[in-house]
């Protein structure tokens, strides 16, 4: 990679008390590329994304966003750089005191100063992209199913067309048809809008659709990295186990 990466984790270590989660993590994503981050449950995939957003501080190493180290930025600086970033949290993290449309339009209203009527229109458009009907806009998050909450969170991440997208398990809990539509949406963001995307997923079909490249996180570092078409003849046992869905011997 000769160009500066859009986002790069270099030498990242992170521990919680005695538990070491990441150790010397090296990962970079070039602008306009889509990366799927794979790994067994509890290996630190969500932590990796939160480190990139400065929501957690690493014990060692740097996270470079457009070449700038976010771990050294002040909170105000980080909030400013977030204008170009969309994040879907694993649990949705919708504001349960606000109706769905205000959740989706939150950044437009509260940070970009867009009027409420216009923000609402744009929120309804974004909801349509994730296959949520306009009636859903006025409901509260607690009145949605798990999959609907996930999609509302996804709509919130893509509204305002940020150039860097993080998705923590975008299709978990969705039926195959809706999941397929979401995969297409993410793919489309990258190919037609030129966004950079990092998606965590356990769904191999999803990973093949949305990602140019895949990376396997295990024991605190990236153990395998390759293109989607290299998945089937990868010789790393963990990757093979992921592809075949059989436990490792």
């Amino acid at each position: 990679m000769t160009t500066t990466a859009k986002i790069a984790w270099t030498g990242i270590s992170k521990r919680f008390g005695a538990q070491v989660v990441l150790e010397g993590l090296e990962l970079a994503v070039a602008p306009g590329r889509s990366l799927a981050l794979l790994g067994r449950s509890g290996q630190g995939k969500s932590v990796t994304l939160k480190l990139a957003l400065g929501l957690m501080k690493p014990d060692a190493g740097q996270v470079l966003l457009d070449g700038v180290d976010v771990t050294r930025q002040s909170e105000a600086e980080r909030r400013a750089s977030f204008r170009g970033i969309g994040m879907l949290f694993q649990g949705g993290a919708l504001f349960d005191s606000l109706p769905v449309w205000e959740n989706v339009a939150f950044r437009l209203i509260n940070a970009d100063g867009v009027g409420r009527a216009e923000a609402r229109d744009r929120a309804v458009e974004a909801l349509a992209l994730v296959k949520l009907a306009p009636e859903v806009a006025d409901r509260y998050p607690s009145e949605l199913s798990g999959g609907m909450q996930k999609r509302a969170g996804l709509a919130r991440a893509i509204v305002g067309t940020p150039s860097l997208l993080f998705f923590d398990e975008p299709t978990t809990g969705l039926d195959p048809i809706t999941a397929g539509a979401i995969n297409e949406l993410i793919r489309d963001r990258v190919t037609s809008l030129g966004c950079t995307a990092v998606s965590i997923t356990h769904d191999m079909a999803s990973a093949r659709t949305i990602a140019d490249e895949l990376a396997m996180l295990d024991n605190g570092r990236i153990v395998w990295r390759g293109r989607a078409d290299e998945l089937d003849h990868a010789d790393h046992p963990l990757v093979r186990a992921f592809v075949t869905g059989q436990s490792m011997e």
Partner: protein
Amino acid sequence: MGLFSTNPVAALGRATLEGVGAIGRVGLFAARGIAAAISPPWYPRQIIAQFASVGFLSLPVVGLTAWFTGAALALNIYSGGDRFNAETVLPQIVALGITRELGPVLAALMLAGRVASAMASEIGAMRATEQIDAMVTLSTDPRRYLIAPRLIAATISLPLLTLITDIIGVAGGMQVSNYLIDLSPGIYIANTMDFLTAWDVESGLIKSAVFGFIIGLMGCYHGDSAKGGARGVGRATTSAMVSAAVLILAADYLLTSVFALK
């Protein structure tokens, strides 16, 4: 180990350090909260919403508390105060007790139970479900969006509620005196109004502004530092309520002594 260390001196030292650390954290949290509250940008919708839930929706409970307190105070002065003819100045004692002490303190304690705990559980739940993290990624400062409106609303609402408490407390005393010693409402009120000075009411309002800030601060601080899921939120709720109540009573004593020595 921990606090149950075999060395009591070490345990005492550790507890002291923890106490000092906690004071420092609360102080820093308060300073940042005030800074966010007094400088733009503000979120007017959030501020109005907090005024509605902290101030307006507290009216019924505060009104009832005030009524019963005024009535009970009048009864006590009547039945206990006849030992030194205190019933001749019953309206005055009720007015003084309500405006200077009971109004501000009881309204504040009711709000510590109703509002500080609700704030802690709401913010704590938002922490636990990553809503606060999400807010940061949406380029919005939670200190301005969540904390500042609550501090502003609590600090301004409580004096207003206390004013209501003063009025309704006197009404409670008036009603009791009316059927108890046949003191006509007109005379009761005339006595009260002649006797009360502006400072009696003002000192109560100054106190209640401080109490309001304490309520907002404890609610937000404990909510924001909640750890460990639903259990943590439950703990935060209790701590917010208890610490707010204790701090209110301590601040009441401090402020009253400052006013008395003035």
